[in-house]
Structure formats: structure tokens, C-alpha cells
């Protein structure tokens, strides 16, 4: 944010930062958010950075002037489940705020196509991707000599940098490291540099997990200084991230900058951040990911290739290149010109939510979605993109076997059957903003669980097999008799029930 402010000032535009809360270190650079309405005029431009619950939407709505959104992405609440119920509730509230901001914003930026896709799904106009500005010079701090000596004792150091919160899946980092240590390199150490709330449930879980797994030489450093962080990178053999959610992923690029090969689980915007450099994997199997750590440690030639590719990746993110891209992106905003936004696509009469339609076409839910789409003119199927497919800013129908399908990027790579399908924030947002009746083909999927509280009055659902499991119980509570069993051997029963119930076929009256 300070970088963007610096650019704006350099281009001759006075700029202030307004916030609700801030660190002491930047108290001279920030003004209270409540001052904004008084400070702004009709020709002011408010750039709203959104990533967490702020409770500032009413203030933003009242404020004079034009408004622009910069979306950093919001972590899906489900990633905090079981550990941080307050943070999970705040994440849900932040997604509600994202939708509440939409009418007030004339243009929206995101730091990745993954995040931009959600903005498009939410119905934002004029969405584009803004390059993430990184102050590379800040990484050139000299390493802390004491920590460098301590960590540089000949062990193969696997490093993770970031807050130890459930969404970063530090527990999976521990699992992968354990596999690496037990299968390939006993003389290894895991270094986790970043805030860890030791008195919290996740902190207790991590420490317990370390004991149960029996991994040795695991260091939770907590918050570290810039010099200590440099020491961590200087002694690292590989950088490992198993994070399930990144709106962009700066530490991955920092590792690349410092010449440490990166192994990362390809969730959310991680593959996009890595841009084909490093080793992004769609597998979260600890033994398989440990193979990548081992091969990078042992094979000097391969390691060299990876590091070279990482350096090449960073070339496109130089400060000058990024500043020019930001200038071009903000040109329209600062000149007062707003590009005409394309007309929104016509609303579908029925939303057929079938996450596995493309990735698991043989499943009964996918076949049912196809049958429904063929019988309901204009109905649209909403599904997950296949593994490895890149996010897109233009959401629209793609022909899948003669049926139009709207694809959305999953929050994590879909695993192989029978692993449950992951959620998809953009798909869930698209369902929420639609006013059409919704058929959840797979009422026990993550997507269905996320959208049901918001669409329960206009939703129908199907499930296969015995009615068991907490997700299905939740669906039953929301849907009651609108939850239909789908027998793979007799799908026509469910098809008949749904066709007779859905409003576009003359069934029950359309819900609002």
C-alpha cells in the first residue's frame, strides 16, 4: 500500500493512507478511517484494499468521490474450521463485505487472476489484474551471524516462512518434512519462521503433531527480524509451502530472489505466482512431495536448472516493469475515464451446481447435471476447472460434450476420486449473486456446504448413497424435503422429482 502511495505521489497525485488500526511503526503515515469522509471531495479517488472483515462498508458507501477496489483475496472460512472460529466468522463476514462493496466501486483490481476471477463472478465491472509490487531491496539485509552459524551446521534445512495459521497448513509442512527426514535425509531440519500463536489451538496442535510424527530438529522461530530471516534463507536447502490459500504469495518469490529452490503445493494463486518456475505440485501426499525435496537436495544439475528458472521468473517483476504496469492500470482511474463495462450475461433460469462435472464426468451427479441441462433450456452448469487449468477473467460457457459449462478455479487442486472435491470461492460467489433457483448436485460437497446458508430458500440438492456425514446432515437441515436421493442405478427418479419441482419447468413458484 505504501509502495502504491509512493507511485501515486511520484506521478503528482497527493495521497493519504486511511486505516482502522495500525502498527506503531507506521503511525506517522496513517490517518484514521473515520477522517476520510471529511477529507475527501467529489473528485477524490478512494482505493479500498480488501482482504479481511473491516466493518467499513457503510463508511465507504457514504464517502464522496469515486471508489476503486484492490482485492487481495479472502481466505475461505473453512480453512480455519476446528481451530479459529472467530477468524472463520470474520472471513465469512469479509466475503459478505466483498459483495456489499460491489455497487459502490467503479473499477476493481486483483493481484492475481485467481482473485480477479472471483471479482468477475461477484459481478464487479472493469476487473483487471494489478502486478504485485515487491521491494526487492528489503531482502538484501545481511544475515544474522548467530542464527546463520546455528542453522548452517551441515543439516539440510527445509524452510517455511509465514504466519503459522491453519490456512497455511504448517501441519502439512511438518508431515512432508517428516517423510523427507525418515525416507531420504535424516540429517535435516525444518525451520518455520513466522508468528505462531503458541497459546492457540493450532499452536497446540502443531506441537502435539510434531511429537506424534516423531520428527527431529523442528524449529519454530516465531517472529524474526529481517537479519534473522536472511539467515534462514542463507542456510536453506529448499523452501517448502503447503499453503491452501494465497492471494499472491510473496514468500515464494522472496525464496526465488534469494536463490532457494521452491517446492509448493499448487493451491489458489500459488501456480500463478510461481509462473512455471520452482516445483509446484498438485499432490499433497507427504511421501510424494518429500521426493521433490530429496531430488532438489541431491541432484545439483536439476537444482541449478530450477534456480535459473526462478531467476528468469523474477525478471518480469522488476520494480520498473511493475511501476509501468501499475501506471497503465491506474491511468483510467486517475484521468477520470471509465472504460465501458460489458453488459452482464443474461441470468440463467436455473443454476446447476455440479463441481465434479468436468473433473469426474462419470459420477452420477455429473450425469444428472447433463440430463437436467438438456431438459432445462438456458440452465447453466457451474463446475470446477480441471487440474492444472489456469484461472480466467472472462467467465463464460465452454462446451463440454455438447453442454455449456461455466468453469471456476478450485481453491485447491481437485484430488483423484474418491477424495472429496475442494471448494471454489469464485464458484460459490457466482451462486450467491445469482437470484435463480439452485440445484446442488452433490449436497455434501464443500461448495454446497459454503453456499447453502445463503441460498437455502431457493435451493434443491441431491446426494448419493447412505445419508450419512456431517455435511449431509447440515444440507438436510437447510433443505428438508428439497434434498433428493440420487440412486446411481435409478437416476430417473431424482430427475423426475427435480423437474417437477423446479420453477422453470412449471413446478413450485420461484423463490426469492
Amino acid at each position: 500500500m505504501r509502495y502504491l502511495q509512493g507511485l501515486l505521489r511520484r506521478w503528482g497525485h497527493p495521497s493519504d493512507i486511511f486505516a482502522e488500526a495500525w502498527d506503531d511503526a507506521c503511525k506517522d503515515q496513517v490517518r484514521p478511517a473515520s477522517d476520510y469522509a471529511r477529507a475527501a471531495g467529489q473528485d477524490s479517488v478512494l482505493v479500498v484494499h480488501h482482504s479481511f472483515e473491516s466493518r467499513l462498508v457503510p463508511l465507504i458507501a457514504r464517502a464522496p468521490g469515486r471508489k476503486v477496489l484492490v482485492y487481495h483475496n479472502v481466505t475461505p472460512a473453512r480453512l480455519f474450521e476446528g481451530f479459529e472460529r472467530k477468524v472463520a466468522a470474520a472471513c465469512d463476514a469479509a466475503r459478505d463485505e466483498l459483495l456489499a462493496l460491489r455497487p459502490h466501486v467503479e473499477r476493481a483490481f486483483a493481484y492475481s487472476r485467481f482473485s480477479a476471477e472471483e471479482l468477475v463472478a461477484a459481478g464487479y465491472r472493469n476487473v483487471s489484474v494489478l502486478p504485485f509490487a515487491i521491494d526487492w531491496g528489503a531482502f538484501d539485509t545481511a544475515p544474522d551471524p548467530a542464527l546463520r552459524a546455528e542453522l548452517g551446521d551441515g543439516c539440510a534445512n527445509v524452510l517455511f516462512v509465514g504466519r503459522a495459521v491453519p490456512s497455511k497448513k504448517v501441519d502439512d509442512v511438518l508431515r512432508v518434512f517428516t517423510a523427507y527426514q525418515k525416507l531420504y535425509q535424516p540429517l535435516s531440519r525444518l525451520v518455520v519462521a513466522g508468528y505462531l500463536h503458541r497459546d492457540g489451538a493450532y499452536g497446540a496442535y502443531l506441537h502435539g503433531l510434531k511429537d506424534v510424527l516423531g520428527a527431529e530438529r523442528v524449529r519454530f522461530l516465531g517472529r524474526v527480524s529481517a537479519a534473522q530471516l536472511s539467515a534462514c534463507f542463507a542456510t536453506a536447502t529448499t523452501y517448502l509451502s503447503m499453503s491452501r490459500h494465497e492471494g499472491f504469495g510473496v514468500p515464494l518469490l522472496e525464496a526465488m530472489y534469494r536463490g532457494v529452490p521452491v517446492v509448493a503445493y499448487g493451491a489458489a494463486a500459488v501456480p500463478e505466482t510461481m509462473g512455471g518456475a520452482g516445483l509446484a505440485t498438485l499432490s499433497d501426499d507427504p511421501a510424494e512431495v518429500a521426493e521433490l525435496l530429496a531430488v532438489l537436495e541431491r541432484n545439483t544439475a536439476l537444482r541449478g536448472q530450477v534456480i535459473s528458472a526462478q531467476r528468469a521468473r523474477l525478471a518480469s517483476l522488476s520494480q520498473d516493469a511493475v511501476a509501468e504496469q501499475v501506471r497503465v492500470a491506474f491511468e483510467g482511474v486517475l484521468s477520470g475515464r471509465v472504460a465501458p463495462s460489458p453488459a452482464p450475461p443474461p441470468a440463467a433460469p436455473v443454476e446447476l451446481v455440479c463441481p465434479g462435472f468436468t473433473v469426474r464426468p462419470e459420477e452420477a451427479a455429473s450425469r444428472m447435471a447433463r440430463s437436467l441441462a438438456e431438459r432445462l433450456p438456458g440452465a447453466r452448469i457451474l463446475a470446477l476447472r480441471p487440474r492444472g487449468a489456469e484461472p480466467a477473467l472472462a467467465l463464460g460457457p465452454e462446451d463440454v460434450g455438447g453442454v455449456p459449462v461455466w468453469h471456476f478455479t478450485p481453491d485447491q487442486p481437485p484430488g483423484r476420486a474418491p477424495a472429496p472435491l475442494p471448494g471454489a470461492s469464485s464458484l460459490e460467489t457466482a451462486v450467491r449473486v445469482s437470484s435463480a433457483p439452485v440445484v446442488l448436485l452433490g449436497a455434501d460437497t464443500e461448495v454446497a456446504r459454503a453456499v447453502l446458508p445463503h441460498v437455502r430458500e431457493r435451493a434443491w440438492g441431491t446426494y448419493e448413497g447412505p445419508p450419512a456425514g456431517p455435511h449431509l446432515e447440515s444440507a438436510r437441515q437447510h433443505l428438508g424435503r428439497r434434498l433428493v436421493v440420487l440412486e446411481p442405478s435409478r437416476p430417473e427418479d431424482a430427475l423426475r422429482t427435480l423437474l417437477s419441482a423446479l420453477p422453470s419447468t412449471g413446478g413450485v413458484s420461484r423463490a426469492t
Partner: protein
Amino acid sequence: MRPEDLLTRTPTAEAVARETAKLPQPSEEAREALRRSLEAASRPATPAPWPALLQEARGKMDSRYAEPATSHRGGLAGLALVVSKRAFRRVFQPFINEVLRKQVEFNESILDALATIHDVQREHARTQATWRQEMEHRLARLEAAAGRAASGGREDGPLPAEPPTAKPGPINKG
């Protein structure tokens, strides 16, 4: 690692997969030991509802709003009291909100802290139970192995140790 599970351009996914296939194969015992410890440590993400013992306090957390106005008096006097209580509330609610704002924030914080302590205790208990089970399984395996060794006429032979891990490879730090 399968090439289709890798997203990398340089080196190619196929090249990386080929190199992983050349890694020395860990022993079956080491793989099995790892599988067991990963299985013991697995923990599906399940929603953690508010602890039951805090539910009542949570219901009373927001002290700004009182119960519906009532009076133990009957007749007109009671009715007048109820009406005046409601009127008082309506007129003074904004001031009550302001006066009790800090109290509500404190209630919320203390409940969060109690819930966190509860969750941490739950995690500790779960970890200890898992760890104890794992120890018992290991002991049972050692006893079974010792029994087999004894029945094979090697009563004084050494007990099998935990599966050996791979030999350390050369460490490259780029």
C-alpha cells in the same frame, strides 16, 4: 511423483518425475513406519462448535439489551410500569449502548479467551491420547517381534529397532 502432478516449465515435469524415479527407494519398513505415523497423526478438519459450557454465557454476552419489560404488579399499575419501562428503554437505549459498549467488548474477549483455553485443552488431550495409542502400538509390535524371536530359538537376540531410515545424501545448498 507423476509428471501430471507437477506444474513446472524449466525443468520440465517429465524431467523432474524421471529424476524422482531415480531416487534410492526407501525400505518397505521405513515406508510402513511413516504410513503408520501419518495415519496416527491424521486429523480431519471438523467444525468446532462453541463449547457447551460457554453457551449460556454466550447467550448473555450482549448486556446492552434487557429481557422484555415485565412487572409483578397486576392491573393498571403493572401495565403503566411495563409501558414506562419500555419507554425508558427506547429513549435511553443509545446511551445504554454507549455506557455498556466496553462491557460487551470485555464479555466478548473473555469468552473468546475461555473458548481458546478450552480448545487448547482439547488439542492437548487429543494429542496425548494419540501419542499414547502410538506408543502402545509400538510396544505391541516390539513384544510380538520379541515373541517371534524367542520362538525361533533366539531368546537372547536383540529386539528389532524402529525401521532404519535412508542414509543421508550429499547436501547441496546452491
